[in-house]
C-alpha cells in the first residue's frame, strides 16, 4: 500500500509544481493576525493551546513556478489555484494509464478532504521567508553526504521498481519508524490532526500520525547530552508573550531521520505556536543549517481547530504493516522472473 501511495502522491506533487495557470501580478499582502481576540489561559496561567487541531492544506511548501513571484492571490485567482492543486492531488482524473488510475482510486480512500483547500489567507506557498516563497539554494554537500544521498536515491529507485533488496531500503515512513510526527510538521495526505495537551510546566503535542507524543518541558532545563539522540529530537519550550517557542536538537543521524537530510551536527529548528483566534493556531517553523541551505528559511501553516466531537483515534502503523512483507515478497518474485531496476538518470 505505502509504495503505491507514495509514488502516486509524489507524482501528483511534481505535477502540482509544473502545471499551473499563469496569474496576473498582485501587490503582496502579509497574513493578517487578529488583534482584538484575547487568548484564554490555563488555570496555571499559560496561554491555552489545548484542543485537537488540523494542519491540512493544499498550499504547497514552496511557491510553484507558474505563479511567478506573487505571494498572495485575489479571491478569483485563489479559486483557480485551489482547483488546480486539488486536481493534481486527487485521483479524480483519467489522464494516466490503467495502473495510474488504480493507484489514484486507491489513494482516494486515504485523502483527507481538508488537504484539498488552500490556506484562508490565499498564499501561494507555506514558506513566508525568503519572500520568493522558495527553499533557499543548497550549499555544496560534503562528499560523504553526497554519497549517502546517492545511495538513498539508488534504494529509492529499487523501491520504485518494486525491487527493494531488504527492509532497510524502505523509507522510515514505510517502516513506520517516523512519519509526519517529527518536526517540522507538514501537511500530508492523511492524519493531519494534532492534539495539544498542557500541564503545569509542559506542552505536549500528540500527532495522529503513528502515536508518539512530544512532551516539551518549559522549565528551562538544558537539552539532553549531545550523544543522546532521538528520532523526534529533544524539544525545549518557552513562552514569548502568547507564543510558544520550541527549539529541538539531538536528532538521530540516520539517513532520512532529519528534515530534508540536513546535517544533524548543524541543523537547527525553531517552531512558534501562536493562537490567533478561537479556531486557529499559527504554526511557524524556521530551519537553518549552513551545511545544507545558503540561508535560514521560515514557513507558516495555519492549524484549524476541529470539532471536539471529531476525535483523534489510535493510528497503529507497524502493528499491521502487511505491506512491508508484500513489498519484499513481490521483490523476490520479480527477481526470480529476472526483472531488473531501470537505469536511473542521475539528477542534474
Amino acid at each position, binding site marked *: 500500500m505505502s509504495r503505491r501511495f507514495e509514488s502516486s502522491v509524489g507524482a501528483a506533487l511534481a505535477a502540482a509544481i509544473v502545471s499551473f495557470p499563469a496569474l496576473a501580478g498582485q501587490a503582496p499582502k502579509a497574513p493578517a493576525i487578529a488583534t482584538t481576540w484575547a487568548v484564554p489561559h490555563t488555570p496555571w496561567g499559560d496561554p491555552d493551546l489545548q484542543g485537537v487541531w488540523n494542519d491540512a492544506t493544499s498550499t504547497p511548501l514552496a511557491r510553484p513556478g507558474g505563479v511567478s513571484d506573487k505571494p498572495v492571490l485575489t479571491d478569483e485567482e485563489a479559486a483557480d489555484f485551489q482547483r488546480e492543486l486539488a486536481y493534481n492531488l486527487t485521483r479524480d482524473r483519467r489522464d494516466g494509464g490503467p495502473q495510474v488510475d488504480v493507484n489514484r482510486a486507491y489513494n482516494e480512500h486515504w485523502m483527507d478532504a481538508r488537504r484539498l483547500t488552500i490556506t484562508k489567507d490565499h498564499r501561494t506557498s507555506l514558506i513566508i521567508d525568503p519572500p520568493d516563497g522558495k527553499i533557499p539554494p543548497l550549499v555544496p554537500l560534503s562528499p560523504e553526504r553526497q554519497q549517502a544521498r546517492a545511495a538513498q536515491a539508488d534504494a529509492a529507485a529499487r523501491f520504485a521498481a518494486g525491487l527493494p533488496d531488504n527492509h532497510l531500503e524502505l523509507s522510515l515512513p514505510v*517502516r513506520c*519508524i517516523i512519519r509526519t510526527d517529527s518536526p517540522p510538521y507538514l501537511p500530508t495526505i492523511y492524519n493531519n490532526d494534532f492534539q495539544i495537551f*498542557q500541564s503545569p510546566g*509542559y506542552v505536549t503535542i*500528540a500527532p495522529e500520525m503513528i502515536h508518539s*507524543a512530544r512532551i516539551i518541558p518549559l522549565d528551562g532545563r538544558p537539552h539532553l547530552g549531545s550523544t543522546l539522540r532521538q528520532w523526534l529530537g529533544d524539544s525545549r519550550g518557552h513562552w514569548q508573550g502568547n507564543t510558544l517557542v520550541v527549539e529541538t536538537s539531538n536528532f538521530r543521524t540516520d539517513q532520512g531521520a532529519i528534515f530534508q537530510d540536513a546535517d544533524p551536527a548543524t541543523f537547527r529548528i525553531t517552531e512558534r505556536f501562536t493562537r490567533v483566534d478561537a479556531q486557529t493556531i499559527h504554526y511557524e517553523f524556521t530551519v537553518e543549517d549552513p551545511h545544507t541551505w545558503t540561508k535560514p528559511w521560515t514557513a507558516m501553516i495555519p492549524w484549524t481547530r476541529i470539532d471536539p466531537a471529531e476525535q483523534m*483515534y489510535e493510528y497503529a502503523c507497524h*502493528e499491521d504493516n502487511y505491506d512491508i512483507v508484500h513489498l*519484499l515478497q513481490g521483490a*523476490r518474485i520479480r527477481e526470480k522472473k529476472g526483472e531488473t531496476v531501470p537505469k536511473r538518470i542521475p539528477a542534474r
Partner: protein
Amino acid sequence: MRSRIGSALIPVGSIAALVVLWLVVTATAGQAPTAGRFPSYRAPRLASHPDLNGVWQAFVTANWDVQDHDAQPGPHPELMGAYGAGPAGQSIVEGGEIPYQPWALAKKKENFEKRMMVDVTDDKKWHDLGDPEMKCYMPGVPRATYMPFPFQIVQGSSDYILIAYEFASTTRIIRMNWKIEAPADSWMGWSRGRWEGDTLVVDVTDFREQTWFDRAGDFHSDALHVVERYTPVSLYHIKYEATIEDPKVFTRPWKISFPLYRRMEDHIQLLEFKCVPFTEELLYGRLRKQPRAGEPSSGGSR
C-alpha cells in the same frame, strides 16, 4: 479542621474527631510505613482534581509473568548468557492465579511455548504467533503500566488526560466523562475516565485481541474489559489497581494491584524506545535479497 475541633458548638462531633485523630496518630507515629500501606493522604489539586502529573514507573516484574515466577533463563542462553534471563517475582494477581477457562489455560501454555516464533508471510496468520512485545507492538492495557519502562501522565484542565509510555512511544488518550463509544477496536483500547473521590477510574474497552499480559503467554480475547484505578497515596506513589474481565477466556473477573513510583531524577523525561528497528530483522530478515555471509539461506525467496 483544627478550628472545628476547637469549636464548642458541636462537642460530640469534636470528641469523635479527636478520637479518630488520636487513632490515626498512634497508628502511624514513630513507625516506618508498612509496605503497601500509607497514612491517609490528600493529593495536591489541579483544576479541582487530584494532580497525577509526573513520570511514573512500576517496579514489579509482572512483564515476565503476572503470576508468581522463579528467576528464569532467557530463551537462548547459549547466545545471551545471563543477559536474556528474567528476574523472579511475586504475583500481582489477587489470590495469586488467573482464573482461566480450561481451554484458555492450555492456550496460554501454547503461547508461552511459541512466544519467540514469528511468521508474517501470511496476512491471516500475521498475529497468531509470538509475544507482541517481541514484535514491538503497542502493549495494551494493563501491560503498558508494568512494562519495565517509565510513563508520563499529562493532566491539564481539559477533558482529556494523556498517558505517554516510553515503550514503543505508545500513547493513549483518556476521555473524561465521555459517553461516545469506540469507533473501532484498538491496541490500547478505548479509555473513558472519571474521578471517584481522589481516584482516577478508567474504563477501557474495545481492545484488539492480540495483546498479551506478559511474556508467559497470558492473554485475552476481544471481549477484554479493564477498569483501572489510579489512587495517589503520597506525593511519590500511586496505588494502581485493575479489574480484568473477559467472559470468553476467564471464569470470573480478576484483579491486579501494585504501586507506581514517581521517578525523582532531576530533569527526568521520557526518552525514546522506538523498537521497530530492533525487531525488523526478526520479522522481515527472511525476505532479504541475499542471505548474509555466514548464514544459511532460510527461504529468502518465499
